[in-house]
């Protein structure tokens, strides 16, 4: 057994060390029925979590998962099998099961397997999993204390830290060998404020592919998140009913990128385009947004939650322009869609785990900054909503309708931010909303590392980013008509 518990057992020196010879044999078994292509996806994931509740460390947890996923392609059809047992017999069994998607016979040419040279977008000197647990508990306590000290109306605080290291090895029948180690950490605080029979909660969190020092530095440290959760809970105590109907909306920087992610991002994942089931199908080269909008999916942003050195098909992480000055210029691809469109891999083939097959997925999706100052954007609004924090969104890919849930928002009256509003949804149509972006701030920000994207039952960590955005008309789903 490997002495370092953080090192994958399939890594060199591990109990189940996988070398080029083993990989070649498994790939040959996977292709023995005549498949066009096969890949092996080894994954080792070790995770930890710490929860503080009522000023006490309530639970500590740890988990280990390991396995191999084998994929075989024959035309547009996929055969997929996996095994948690990395003995050669069980891996060989999975390879044969996946290979059955191809009904014929034949022998694949043995290929030479060569390591892919990968970048390093998230060097972490000391992964949090190797740090003393006491330091993690100290962060939770610091957030808890800060939230309680913020105001006497704070009656409950919860803080949590979730950390993991995921090691992947992807070997393909094209002869590529890609290996990546992906640290991920997320810190979160929830505070409840109560006064005179009213109760509200607020949350704040952050993280990324970073070490523990991210929450102790000069920026948004653990205590900052504690105060921020408390601030939101208190602000929301005075929230009033949100308006209902179409109006002007200003989205604050960073987390508003969720709107972009839902409104256009998913529609530009090329599995939908390949099948002709997205409203962006067949729209390359066409105007799909206002001239102000340039949308980029960038897996190479230093230490961001959505960044990847290698995607889950073994391709290096990349930055891809999707919409340039309003014109659709590219989709996000996995192997199947890249082959269909005769383009190169875009580094977007991602999967939740070895139990899942890859799909085109976003990494960090951003709207590039524009020419306006946030102040002049707000000043231009007669009556509207200023959206700051969000709990998430959802889209119907086929028609582009999306919703987007606000947890902290304010009324704008005569160019000024006035009253806080109760939780409310925005609903719109992706392609329409992007044509209604009439002002774009110069204040671009990347979200802190808290977002997870779900698609067809698979979750992957992502990042989003925007400057301040003015949308001249979108439906606000409040209760006040």
């Amino acid at each position, binding site marked *: 057994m490997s002495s370092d518990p953080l090192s994958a057992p399939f890594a060199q020196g591990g109990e189940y060390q996988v070398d080029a010879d083993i990989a070649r044999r498994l790939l040959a078994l996977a292709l023995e029925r005549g498949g066009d292509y096969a890949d092996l996806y080894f994954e080792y994931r070790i995770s930890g979590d710490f929860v503080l509740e009522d000023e006490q460390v309530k639970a500590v947890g740890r988990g280990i998962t390991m396995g191999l996923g084998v994929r075989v392609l024959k035309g547009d059809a996929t055969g997929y099998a996996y095994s948690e047992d990395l003995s050669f017999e069980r891996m060989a069994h999975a390879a044969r099961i996946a290979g059955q998607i191809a009904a014929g016979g034949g022998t694949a040419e043995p290929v030479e397997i060569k390591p892919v040279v990968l970048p390093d977008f998230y060097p972490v000197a000391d992964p949090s999993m190797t740090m003393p647990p006491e330091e993690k508990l100290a962060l939770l306590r610091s957030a808890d204390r800060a939230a309680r000290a913020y105001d006497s109306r704070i009656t409950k605080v919860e803080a949590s830290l979730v950390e993991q290291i995921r090691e992947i090895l992807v070997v393909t029948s094209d002869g590529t060998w890609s290996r990546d180690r992906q640290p991920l950490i997320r810190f979160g605080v929830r505070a409840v404020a109560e006064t005179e029979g009213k109760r509200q909660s607020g949350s704040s969190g952050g993280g990324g592919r970073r070490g523990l020092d991210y929450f102790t530095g000069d920026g948004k440290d653990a205590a900052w998140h504690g105060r921020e959760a408390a601030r939101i809970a208190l602000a929301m105590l005075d929230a009033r009913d*949100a308006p209902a*109907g179409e109006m002007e909306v200003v989205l604050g920087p960073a987390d508003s990128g969720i709107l972009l992610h839902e409104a256009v991002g998913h529609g530009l994942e090329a599995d939908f385009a390949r099948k002709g*089931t997205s409203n962006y199908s067949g729209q390359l080269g066409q105007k799909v947004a206002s001239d102000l909008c340039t949308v980029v999916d960038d897996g190479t942003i230093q230490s961001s939650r959505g960044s990847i050195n290698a995607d889950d098909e073994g391709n290096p992480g990349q930055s891809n322009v999707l919409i340039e000055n309003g014109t659709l210029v590219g989709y996000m691809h996995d192997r199947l869609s890249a082959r269909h469109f005769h383009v190169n891999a875009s580094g977007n083939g991602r999967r939740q785990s070895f139990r899942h097959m890859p799909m085109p997925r976003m990494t960090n999706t951003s709207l590039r900054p524009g020419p306006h100052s946030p102040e002049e954007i707000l000043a231009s609004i007669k009556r509207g909503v200023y959206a700051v924090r969000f709990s998430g969104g959802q889209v119907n890919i*086929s028609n582009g309708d999306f919703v987007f849930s606000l947890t902290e928002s304010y009324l704008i009256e005569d160019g000024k931010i006035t009253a806080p509003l*109760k*939780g409310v949804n925005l609903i719109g149509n992706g392609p329409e909303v992007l044509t209604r972006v009439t002002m774009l701030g110069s204040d671009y920000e990347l979200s802190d590392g808290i977002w997870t994207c779900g698609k067809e039952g698979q979750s992957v960590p992502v990042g989003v980013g925007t400057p301040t955005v003015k949308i001249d008309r979108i439906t606000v789903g409040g209760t006040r008509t």
Partner: protein
Amino acid sequence: MTKRDVVGELRDLAQQVVQLARKAGADDAEVQVSDGSELTAKVRLGEPELVQEAGSRGLGLRVFRDLRQAITFTSDLRPHALERFATDAVALARLSEPDELHRLPDPEHLAREIPDLDLYDESSEGLDAAEALSRALRGEKAALAHDSRVTNSEGATYSRVLGAMAFATSGGFAGGYLGSYSSLTVEPVCDDEGGKKRNGYWWTAARFASALEEPEEVGREATRRTVAQLGSRKVDTSEVPVVFDPEAGRAIVGMVFSVANGSAFYRKSSYLIGREGQPAASELVTIHDSPHIPRAPGSRPFDGDGLPTRVNVVLDRGVLRTVLCDVYSARKLGRESTGSAGRGTGSSPGPTTSNLIMQPGVTTREQLLASTERGLYVTSMMGFGFNPVTGDFSRGASGFWIENGELTFPVSEVTISANFDDLLKRIDLVADDLVLRSSTACPTFRVSHMTLAGRG
């Protein structure tokens, strides 16, 4: 080995790991082991798109030591790995802080008998990939043939899951059971005006494959539902009656649970705190959580704490009767568990539901619609717009406009909003068309008025 033997094997393994943890110094330990196998076959436009076949196992361990706890999981079930895993868990528990409530349930509360609820379809073990593909193909073919306006397809998926689980504790509980689930989903796509696509779907799912609707019927219904959306449009912002069909309405029933459970109560994450014994919905609303219905999707013979499951009346003619609790949340609130603990492999137990069912009324669906002069008939909702702390509710909705008691044109891209407390109290008609298609279910019901935000 048949699956029936697997339960015994898992139970033995769970008990062994309980002993390993005790040997490593745990005062008490609980182990859950699960074994699942899946077969998924997807076709699209008449061709196979995916065949996925695999089995997997996982083990979750909770240890208590000096009133401290740790919760761990692993997929590495080799004996020497489990030994180290149990030792690590006990060491980990030192990091948490003592909590008087971190104890096993009282032994006299544990389930003594494990009723056979007929949750496992042995005959579905024999299904192979070719047959699964064939059923998916039949469903999709019927969908494509049913209406020429269907221009594309997201495919059809047939899936079968077979599972076994066992749970053992140092407090003396050891039990397990089998479960199976088969399903077919068909997703046709149409072209609408302005380049918009309209996708829809229909599905059938059951513990016994013989209870599934015929693939052709599922395909035709999927197409009916998809083409019905053609020409969807926004309607004007207004206050209107809102009718929830059972597919959309069950989300509302699920939200009732999210504010009527012990964890939400002690975490101060429910607007219903302090409202037990008081009206929380209209008198027409009765919601039961019923774990013992044979062959039902959410049935289970014991809960995640090893306690017997039981019928709980959550809302009784509108009055909040039972807040669903696991052992921990019940202790936190100074009361008894309702046998509602759920537990994923490797997570803390928490309150959950079994078959959460809003009981049918006496009106027919047709009468309900006929008595609605105008309003919105909701068939699906989108988004996460519900704040359990305050009850603020605002979600995206689509469905049909009701005019003079009849469904007219399709509606999309609107939101419906109300405070959830008001929403439940404004339920003024409940139909009699309850069908237990999923573990959370309801008949068609109407809310007298909500704010619809759309055009203008």
